[in-house]
Every structure is written in C-alpha cells, then in structure tokens.
C-alpha cells in the first residue's frame, strides 16, 4: 500500500480538501440570506460530527449509538461553565472535550471488551443513563435546560445576535479539523491497527496489534472531537436541554451522514452531510407546513433508496476505483 499511487492519492485528497475549504469560505460572500447560511452551518457541523464518529465507528469498526453522550457533555460543560462561572466558551469547549475524552476512556475500559452488537447495545444504554441523569439533575437545569442569553455581539463570548458568519467560519474550521485529523490518522500506525481490528480483532491481536489500546485511542479522539461539536451547538443555538443534545435520536443523527455517505471512508461523512442536512431542512421548511409529514417521507425514502442501490454509501457513485480502494 505504500506505493507511489497511495502517496499521490493522499496528496490529491489534501489538495481537494484545501480547495473545498477555500471555496466554502467564499460562499457567504455571495449567499447573504441567514436561512441559507443556517443550513450551511448545520451541514458543516454534522460533517464534523459524523467525521468524528467515523473515527471510532468507521475506521475502528466499533459502532457507537451513544455519541449523543459526548456531544451533550461538550454542550453542557460549556454552557454550565459560561452561565454559572462566567468561563469563556473557548475554554469551556476545551474543558468539554477533555471531560468527554476522559469519560470515553472510563467507559471504554469495560465496554471495549464487548464484541460487535453487544458494544453497540452498551453505548445506547450508557447514553440513555446519562440522558436520565441530566434530565433529573436540578443544578444542571434538569428538564428546563440551560438558556444562554445573547445580549450583544462578542468574539470573546462567541455570541452573535444576528450574524451567522462567525458560526459559519467556526463550523468550517471544525469540519476541516475533523477531516484533517482523520486524514492524518488514516495513514498512521493507529489507522492501520484500527482497520485490522475492524476486519478481524483476533487475527489482528495474533499479529501484534494492541487491540484494546487502539480501541481506547479511537474512542478518546472521537469523543473529544464530538464534544467540540457539542460545545459549538450550545453556543450556536444558545439553549440546550437533555432532549435536544442527549437523546438517542441525536446519536443516530450523528452517525447517519457517515453511514449514508460511506462508512469508514475519508469523504463519506462530508458527502453524507452535504446531501442529508439540506434535504431535511429544505423539505421541512417548504413542504413541512402542511402537517402531513411529507417532508419526513421524502427524507426516509432517500435513505432507503441509497441503502438499496449503494450499500457502501453515496461515495460509490463517484468512482469505482475509489470504491475498490475503500474495500481494500
């Protein structure tokens, strides 16, 4: 795999990503409508989140259906530090990421010993317990949630009353970093370990891969990045409650772009988010007002259609060669 074409492909990926980021950064110069900007922010946020999920769920093959836990922790740590202690969200964001990574390690210690479906079930249960704790924890707002009042524009507090641009550029930065981390890890020792663990943990172990530790590493990195996304969400929406940031449904929303776009691939989460998020938002806004759920039918049909025709994800549409490489 360490042949010339591999190096060329990696360099090409990096250049394509750089061009994408540069182009995306220019879009708000032409698209001034806040509603359209809002969709772009959400798309980038989900691209970043799904990319983070993909590190553990895609590359390492440990399907987590409880990532809302890390997302919610990032959101809660940031919001609580800001509203109760006046800590700026930039520090809150890092604190949230570190807390999430530590919790991921603590939870990974028992759960990464579970195989396949049992691991997925454990992640659902643990996230649900955390959801219930937050729902009943009065100090953290319980069911009422935390309302972050936005009075003025401030970079220090990362609050903006009407402008979406600062949020847009942060979301772009977040998605780009998540992509870059994945790009770098893909070619690292850990990247190869993860794929080996995914294919056959027993065989990998026998060949000297430190299976358990490599799972722990994937879990911590994935949780850290997901929490950064959660912190961003708290500041962007300026209100969080357990239902919005910690529900099981949100765990699914995080994994869906990666699954739809191409699980365990570099471009899958980005592509999945670019298709899914605008479709959900636009159909809800323009055909969702009828009260007949047409928008959800369209959304559901799209997912079914993709899974039937492209089981390996939307990425398969673009090049057969890439598909072969991904399968390798």
């Amino acid at each position, binding site marked *: 795999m360490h042949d010339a074409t591999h190096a060329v492909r990696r360099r090409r990926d990096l250049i394509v990503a750089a061009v994408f980021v540069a182009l995306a950064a220019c879009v708000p110069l032409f698209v001034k*409508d806040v*509603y359209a900007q*809002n969709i772009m922010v959400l798309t980038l946020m989900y691209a970043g989140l799904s990319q983070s999920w993909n590190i553990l769920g895609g590359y390492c093959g440990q399907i987590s259906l409880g990532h809302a836990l890390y997302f919610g922790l990032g959101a809660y740590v940031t919001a609580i530090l800001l509203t109760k202690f006046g800590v700026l969200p930039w520090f809150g964001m890092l604190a949230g990421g570190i807390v999430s990574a530590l919790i991921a390690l603590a939870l990974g210690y028992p759960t990464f010993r579970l195989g396949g479906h049992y691991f997925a079930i454990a992640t659902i249960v643990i996230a649900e317990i955390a959801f219930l704790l937050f729902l009943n924890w009065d100090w953290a707002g319980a069911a009422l949630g935390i309302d972050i009042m936005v009075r003025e524009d401030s970079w220090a507090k990362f609050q903006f*009353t009407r402008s979406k641009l600062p949020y847009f550029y942060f979301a772009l930065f977040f998605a780009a970093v998540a992509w870059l981390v994945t790009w770098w890890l893909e070619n690292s020792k850990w990247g190869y370990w993860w794929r080996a663990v995914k294919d056959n943990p027993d065989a990998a172990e026998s060949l000297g891969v430190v299976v358990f530790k490599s799972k722990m590493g994937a879990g911590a990195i994935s949780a850290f990045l997901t929490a950064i996304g959660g912190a961003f969400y708290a500041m962007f929406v300026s209100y969080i409650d357990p239902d919005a940031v910690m529900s099981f449904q949100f765990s699914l929303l995080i994994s869906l772009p990666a699954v739809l776009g191409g699980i365990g691939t570099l471009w899958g989460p980005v592509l999945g988010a670019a298709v899914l998020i605008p479709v959900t938002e636009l159909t809800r*806004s323009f055909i969702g007002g009828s009260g007949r759920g047409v928008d959800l039918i369209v959304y559901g049909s799209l997912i079914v259609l993709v899974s039937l025709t492209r089981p390996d994800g939307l990425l398969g549409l673009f090049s057969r060669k890439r598909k072969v490489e991904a399968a390798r």
Partner: protein
Amino acid sequence: MSITRRTVLLGATASAALLPLAARAQAKEVVIGVIYPLSGASAQIGVDAQRAFETAADIINNKYDFDLPLARDEGLPGLGGAKVRLVFADHQADPQKGRAEAERLITQEKVCAIIGTYQSAVAVTVSQICERYQIPFLSADNSSPSLHRRGLKFYFRAAPHDEMFSKAMFDFFDALKKKGQKIETLSLFHEDTIFGTDSANAQLALAKERGYKVVADIKYRANSPSLTAEVQQLKAANADVLMPSSYTTDGILLVKTMAELGYKPHAIVAQDAGFSEKALYDAVGDKLEGVISRGSFSLDLAKKRPMVGAVNEMFKKRSGKDFNDYSSRQFMGLIVMADAINRAKSTDGEKIRQALVATDMPGDHTIMPWKRVKFDDKGQNNDADPVLLQYVNKNFVTIFPEQAAVAEAIWPMNK
C-alpha cells in the same frame, strides 16, 4: 421656477397628504408567523392549532357579529383594511429547528409577529430569536412559568402559566375546607419533562405555603411502560387528593393501573394535559367519573356568552372537534396579536410591542373565562383566570371559580 418658502411648504403638504395613501397601498397584507409541531409525536396538536388560527384569521378578515376585537370589520381598519395572512412552520419539537424556522419567517417571509409553540423548550429559542430581531412573540399555549421571567422585551403571554393553574387548585381546596370538607394530605404524581417538573415545583411550594401535607411526591419517566410500583406508593399514601401532571398515554396507564390495583382515590385534581384530552376519556372515561382538571377554557361559557358557542361551531366545522384547552388559547393568541397590530397601525416590531404593552381587552370580548387581557412588565397577563372542570356524566362542567361555575363540585369523587 425659483424655490420659495411657499413652494417648499406646498410640496411638504402635498407629500404629507399623499403619505397615508402610500401606506395604505403598501399594507394590503399583514403576515404573521405561526410555529408549531406539524410532524412527529405531537403533530396532531399542531394540525388542530392550524385550524384554530385559521378560524381566528377568518373572523379578523371577514365581517362577523361577535363581541371580539376586529370581528365586525373586514381586515385591520388601523392598516386600511389589510388582511391577516398566516405562514405556518414546523419545528418538530426541536428547539434548534424552532430557532431556524423563526429566523426564516422573519427574514424571508417578513412576518411582523410570531405565535407559538406548544412545547416550552421551543418557545425558549423562538422568543430569543424574536428578541434579537425585535419582533413580538406571543406564547399562545406555553405554560412554563420560567418563560416570562427571562427579561425579554418582546415576549408576551395572554394565557395563564402553571403557577396560576396550581394556585387555582389550592384556592379551590381552601374554599372546600371552609365548607367543612377534610383536605389535609396531597399526593403529587408527575412526569419528568419541563411540564411535570414545573407543575410539581409550583404545587410543592403552594402546599407548604398553605399548610397542606404532601404525603407522596412521585416523579416518573414520561411514556413509562409500567406504573405499578408508583401506583402502589400512591395507594399506600392514600392522600385526600391525588394531583397528577401527566400527558395522555401516561394518564391512561395511571388510571388503568389504579383500577387493577384497586386504588380509588378520594379525589383527583389533575393538571390538564392528558386529563383534558378526548383520547384519555375515550379509553378510561368510565373509571374517571368525578375527576377534576384545571383548564383555561370551558364551553359552559357559551351559556352566558352565546358568541363562544358560535365561534366554537366555526372551529368545529374546520377540525371536527370542540375547542379544548389548547385550541382556545391558540385562537385567542392570534386575536390578541392582531388587535395590537391594528392599534399600532404599523407592522414595525417596536410599534407592535408598544401596542401590546398598552393592551387592555375586557374579558367578555374574549372566548375565555378571563377577567381581561393586560400584560405586566414581564409580558404576562395576570388576569387570565383558570377554571376547574369536573367530569360528570361524560361531560365537563365548570365548578370553580364561582363567577364562572355552573355547578357545585361533587366531593369526594366516589360518593
């Protein structure tokens, strides 16, 4: 021609005379945003809300002989007869989506006011966005008391909040005690989302303040598959009054479980929600003879105020249902907002806000049992009196407060 003072004056007068004409030509339509859950678990609420708002818009835009503001005019006379147009948006019970939809309605649809939202969590984000864009927001049917205490200038609520509802219950207990009934102990039974939490907090505070003993305070997980353990605790406590705060499915399960375990409470005084839904009485109504629920609306009012019956018929034609606690509040939400826009004579957010602040609508010009509509400095109407209704012979009759009551309360419920 040289420009003299006279020509300038002439020009100014002419422009001034033409101005109202121009304004009239512009404001043919007043656009109001309505944000509700139109898909997902509470979609039915949103669909019923649409019918309630359409009924209100019909009354505002056409001529009807009702004692309601704007009913006897076509459109808004203050804006040259402009018609109200509603734009509905779906928030799917998600605060993030509610926020995005509010922003879309304001920037793309150019709405001059927003009404919503059923779920209190969504009202938090929608009202924040309205504040940022200086557009008035009216909570038609959110009952969480925390909403109006956030220091927002553009937030208004014409209907009662949960503390007012709970206060009515305790006023009722006090009145019964004066008449010689024994009411000393209470059991609280509530679900764990904002609604149940707020409701129980208010009830606990009131019980302490007025000297009632809470012998059981049971919080349960919403949409619980089984309530057996909880009902056993209620049965053991056997309080003088059982006070549930539950949505429909939990309410049905509660009543069924109580019957299975043979627990017959002396009295049930419920915090609305499930206990004002037709579905609950369809399922377990036979076990609920004499149950009391709070409400903000009562069809009994039609006997005293025939207009209420006529408006209800208009709503029924659209939705196939009578007004209930929610749809009546939604209806009034649009009437109150349109009345303010009419008096503001403008679609400017700040001017509408000032008109809302100045609102003073007498109770008999509404379809509610309220004293009047007048907002305090936080945007809450404190004169929105709730009512207590008792389920007797498959019908709800108003039993409290006295000025609205049509029957004496049956107490205890299982005589």
